[in-house]
């Protein structure tokens, strides 16, 4: 543990660029509750990135992470395979989701946000709620965890922007229809890209439906030590890593969050470009812990 790193028990792609990892981390698996995350560093020169835990199994001591390869670190992580070692995984961090009987809950997952919403949705169902899941993706190929969502929901709807699967449209179109329908909705949980979460907040606000979102600001330590993850909620500064990551959607300053998340855009672009054009230095850093052979960028 700790100094020896964390070995990957299982790794497989769920969609292009979206990979599932089951990682041996017994201490975290024992403590993990829905809504919590870990911070991961993948080699000696690596940055620390937060990843939500999609599932944990205290019996076999593993946690499941679902990683979308967007930036350099996540793209590099997605080259790891079963048997490889991740040097640093710390958690579980953040406050767990508030799990109790609300009544009818609409869970909205946008893109890999589905992976973050999944454990909370499952727990909400377990607490006796009627769970309606709405999964949104740009296109059919990018949809993840549909079967898992079906297994833990009373109703499932899928929307795609291009209509390649499910209903053509946005998750908020579906949400509007649900709000207009028969059933009274007691809680909405929305997790996905910032514009989606903001749109959901604006959809439910006029109806006064309690709405929660899980925020993804840039983090360093994840323990309240740096303040880099601060967001404005109800006019007050909150540290998402310890006070969140879930907050009342109607009180979050999404605009401020989006701006702060863009803070390192230039550096991120540069790092990715450098990695894609020459991945060797990074692959060398992970080689001794990984069976990596192939050095062509994917």
């Amino acid at each position, binding site marked *: 543990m*700790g100094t020896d790193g964390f070995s990957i028990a299982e790794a497989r792609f769920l969609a292009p660029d979206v990979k599932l990892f089951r990682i041996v981390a017994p201490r975290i698996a024992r403590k993990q509750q829905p809504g919590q995350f870990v911070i991961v560093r993948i080699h000696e020169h690596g*940055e*620390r990135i937060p990843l939500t835990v999609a599932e944990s199994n205290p019996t076999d001591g593993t946690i499941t992470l679902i990683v979308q390869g967007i930036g350099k670190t996540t793209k590099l992580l997605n080259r790891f395979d079963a048997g490889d070692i991740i040097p640093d995984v710390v958690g579980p961090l953040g406050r767990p989701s508030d799990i109790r009987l609300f009544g009818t809950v609409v869970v909205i997952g946008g893109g890999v946000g589905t992976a973050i919403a999944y454990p909370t949705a499952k727990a909400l169902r377990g607490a006796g709620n009627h769970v309606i899941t709405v999964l949104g993706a740009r296109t059919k190929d990018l949809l993840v965890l549909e079967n898992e969502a079906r297994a833990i929901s009373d109703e499932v709807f899928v929307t795609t922007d291009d209509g390649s699967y499910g209903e053509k449209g946005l998750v908020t179109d579906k949400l509007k229809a649900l709000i207009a329908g028969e059933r009274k909705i007691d809680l909405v949980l929305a997790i996905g890209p910032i514009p989606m979460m903001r749109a959901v907040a604006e959809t439910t606000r006029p109806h006064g439906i309690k709405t929660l979102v899980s925020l993804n600001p840039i983090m360093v330590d994840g323990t*309240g030590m740096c303040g880099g993850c601060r967001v404005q909620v109800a006019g007050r500064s909150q540290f998402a890593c310890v006070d969140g990551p879930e907050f009342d959607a109607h009180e979050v300053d999404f605009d401020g969050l989006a701006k702060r998340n863009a803070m390192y855009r230039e550096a991120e672009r540069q*790092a990715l470009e450098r990695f894609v054009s020459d991945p060797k230095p990074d692959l060398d850093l992970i080689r001794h812990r990984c069976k990596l052979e192939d050095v062509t960028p994917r």
Partner: protein
Amino acid sequence: MANPLTPKDRTKIPRQKMPEQEPEHRRQNFAEVNLGLNFHLATQEAMRCLECAHPKCVDGCPVGVKVKDFIALVLAGDYLAAAAKIREDDILPAITGRVCPQEDQCEGTCIMNKKFGAVGIGYLERFVADYERETGQIGLPPIAPPTGKKVAIVGSGPAGLSAAGDLIQKGHQVTVFEALHEIGGVLIYGIPEFRLPKEIVRQEVENMKRMGVEFQTNIVVGKTVTVDELLGEEGYHAVLVATGAGLPQFLGVPGENLCGVYSANEFLTRVNLMKAYKFPEYDEPIYDCRGRNVAVVGGGNTAMDAIRSALRLGAKNAYVIYRRSEAEMPARAEEVKHAREEGIQFLLLNNPVEFLGNDKGWLRAARCIKMELGLADESGRRRPVPIRGSEYELPLDVVIIAVGTSSNPLVQSTTPDLKTRKGGYIEADPETLKTSKVGVFGAGDIVTGAATVILAMGAGRKAAAAIDEYLRTGVW
């Protein structure tokens, strides 16, 4: 060799100057500023010691390092013995020699201080510790036979490390749990390379590993495991909480969430722990300071470390904004001197009242107000009062807030029977460092509030002695 000089002649030797990198050069790199005394300078400096019958320097040192004795050993040329002498009271001499506020401690009380300039005790301490390390002759102390008792230490800053070092010698099994991926606390994530090379901290940690201390990184006590679990199913007989005062304080003025506004903790963690100054060779980014205007708010060591780091990252203008005057600045005198030499601009008696942004959410300026000193407050320092109508705008791209830290509640909030006092700091007996919870001790900044390396180290050692006694006698 005994000192051949008369006391009078000793006072005639000027305090030796620490060789250092030239300001123009060092402001462009992260290598250590002070280069260390050579043998000749060290001997000259040691000759200045008057060998007082009642050395005041020892009283001035929070842990009572036997200054006179170790300086005599330097003069005798027995540097290893000198280092061993210091280690009797201070197990991290290479670190304290570099970062102690000597002017307020040993050198402040040195009898030579007023008229001739204090003996360079910190310089000499560093000299012998570096000699010991560079010759690879650190004498590891003997370890007592195993007692079968297990101690968990939470936090790997100077308090935790020093306690671990003492407890392992007593034959206990010691595990240090650290939330971050590297061991050392503020010594690793806070104090920059140019003041305390990380290699020195790593070497100390290596020594402890060789003595048998186990380190577990990536464990956040309160999250990954609780204190009650450590004492229960994990089978530890005692727990020392040494989690520091790591929570950043902000000013609470408008605009503090703009891009470009950092806490000193974040800025320094990115630079030191994550090596952002080597981006893109290292992945963690930091705002590109090259050619920009950067300011730090505050006047302590943290403020100096942050702004001098920004300067090394290429800042065009680097300011310290401090609401009192230079006399009240809590930073070590040497850091302020070095900062000035490097071209840091001091805006004393100034205070930001608002940060102004552009339409993309980026900082563009600070609105500052000038201050004057009024009557003394409860801390005895003259209280700064704003001068009405003196507000002005200072164009800035980055501002770093270094106005103090407070306690991190993760351990306290998950350990219900652990008593805290105002500010969430842990209540502990000043002598035994016992907390309100049986088997749990507290040491360092998490008990005292943000203080110094040597005080944290001293507290860690006191706690170790009390823990050892508790484990041997079973009496709480």
